[in-house]
């Protein structure tokens, strides 16, 4: 696309481009130099603050358990969200208003309420009514919050995935005598899920990032471990920087996998619908997909 936006540069344009390029490199370098200088001045770059990350103890006692905590919550939440989301999504496509409407209300409600609010609430709820063993309390609340929100996002993905299928698919299914339920289960849903797959993997990045909210309710994930390292070695800022880097690396790879899945789906087909892009804008992905699929149906309520 970008190659369409500008002509091949002539000699003068080339000079200008090079100038702007060099100027921006200098600007970035200056900013970095300022940041590093200031951090050094404030004593944040001392060996005492950074050395701990080279010791095994910090990794075995803090960072790796933290990463496992983050991945555990994200994995459980994603699996539950897929289950609940598929049910809600199919429910929203139902011809029966008494199924369609409640599913719609549930989906719209949980898409509107901040995940943090849901975590705070379920944490208080589970603690007050003693619904989980105490050491599973925070995990349960984190998973609930993530599941409810992402379940509603998945529901919307399912809906737009089914909408993006050509009409001929359901017409053909009906023509060979399949019931509405069977049409959905045997023809529409499998293709919709294949089309959704890249977007679902992309959504995993959102889930991984949102587990970080769990530290507010004392869930033992990376961010909370960073706080503990900070308390232990008096190096809060370096600990947060290291944890931030871990998040970026893990999420970057998940993003790459999402793109691979998309390319594969595009290449191998198995679905009559175009694959939904693995956008990490969570809800935006839904809207883009819905808009691309069917301008009449619209994305959001």
């Amino acid at each position: 696309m970008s190659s369409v936006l500008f002509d091949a540069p002539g000699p003068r344009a080339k000079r200008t481009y090079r100038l702007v390029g060099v100027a921006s490199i200098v600007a970035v370098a200056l900013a970095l130099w300022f940041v590093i200088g200031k951090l050094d001045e404030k004593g944040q770059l001392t060996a005492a603050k950074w050395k701990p990350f080279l010791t095994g103890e910090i990794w075995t006692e803090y960072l790796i358990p933290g990463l496992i905590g983050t991945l555990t919550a994200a994995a459980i939440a994603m699996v539950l969200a897929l289950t609940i989301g598929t049910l809600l999504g199919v429910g929203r496509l139902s011809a029966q208003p008494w199924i369609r409407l409640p599913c719609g209300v549930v989906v719209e409600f949980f898409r509107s309420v901040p995940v943090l609010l849901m975590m705070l609430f379920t944490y208080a709820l589970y603690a007050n009514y003693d619904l989980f063993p105490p050491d599973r309390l925070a995990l349960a609340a984190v998973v609930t919050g993530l599941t409810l929100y992402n379940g509603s996002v998945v529901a919307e993905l399912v809906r737009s995935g089914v909408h993006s299928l050509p009409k001929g698919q359901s017409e053909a299914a009906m023509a060979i005598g399949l019931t509405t339920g069977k049409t959905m289960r045997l023809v529409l849903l499998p293709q919709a899920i294949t089309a959704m797959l890249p977007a679902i993997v992309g959504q995993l990045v959102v889930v991984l990032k949102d587990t970080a909210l769990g530290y507010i309710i004392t869930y033992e994930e990376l961010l909370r471990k960073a706080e503990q390292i900070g308390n232990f070695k008096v190096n809060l800022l370096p600990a947060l920087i290291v944890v931030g880097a871990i998040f970026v690396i893990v999420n970057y790879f998940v993003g790459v996998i999402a793109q691979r899945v998309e390319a594969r789906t595009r290449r191998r087909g198995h679905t009559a619908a175009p694959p939904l892009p693995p956008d990490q804008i969570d809800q935006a992905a839904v809207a883009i997909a819905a808009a691309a699929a069917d301008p009449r149906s619209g994305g959001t309520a």
Partner: protein
Amino acid sequence: MRQRIIAALGITVLAATGLTACGDDGAGGSGGSGDKITIGIKYDQPGLGLKEGSNYTGLDVDVAKYVAKEMGYEEGNIEFKESPSAQRETLLGNDQVKMIFATYSITDARKEKVSFAGPYLVAGQDLLVRADNTDITGPDALNGKKLCSVTGSTSAQKVKDKFAKTVQLQEYDTYSKCVEALGAGAIDAVTTDNTILAGFASQAANQGKFKVVGETFSEERYGVGLKKGDTETCTKVNDALKKMVDSGEWQKAVDKNVGPSGLKLDAATNPPKSFDACA
């Protein structure tokens, strides 16, 4: 193609459950069985209860170890478990821990849900300032200053309402951020229990940087949290605490953990001479 999706979902489920199983390791040995004991502490409070790699340090930990030893548990048989404030009552109620030593103030509201032994320390709300500060001598000297505390805690609001109407309040979610901000000069004082403040000031990397003002303006009686009605343990704990105070071990533990900050505990109430009746 359907099988493939099912297989993909299956793999995800397997991965998820596999990970959960990994996370399950810690839940195995809960307290109260024979010669092992599980004790709840804080993991994030230097000087009181702090996880340092695979070790645990602090005053709460030392007192807990002493009491457990008096009750017949060797140090190797003690299992420590993190007890964040919001989970303390449930941890005790579900027998996940036998006792809790975690800056747990004895209050009437809490007594309705759990029982307390002790108190083993009487702390009070105080202020932490930079070592070179001379003008903050107490809460009423905070007008126009910047004071830090944690979100949801009433301690900073109390200072504003009772002592210094024009103080500016900074709220973070953890005390370590307050201490970071105090060190960077962005705020003038941190307020909470003097023991917690002293714990931060006593950390090796912080020594000489901060001091506790020493004008307490509340009384927090740290008790040992027990399951409601566990009078048997309560009596044993109180006996152990008495012995700890009498033998001088108590003073040693205080000096070691919060002494480097120069903290002076209120001598009228510390060390505690009498304990609440076990009921």
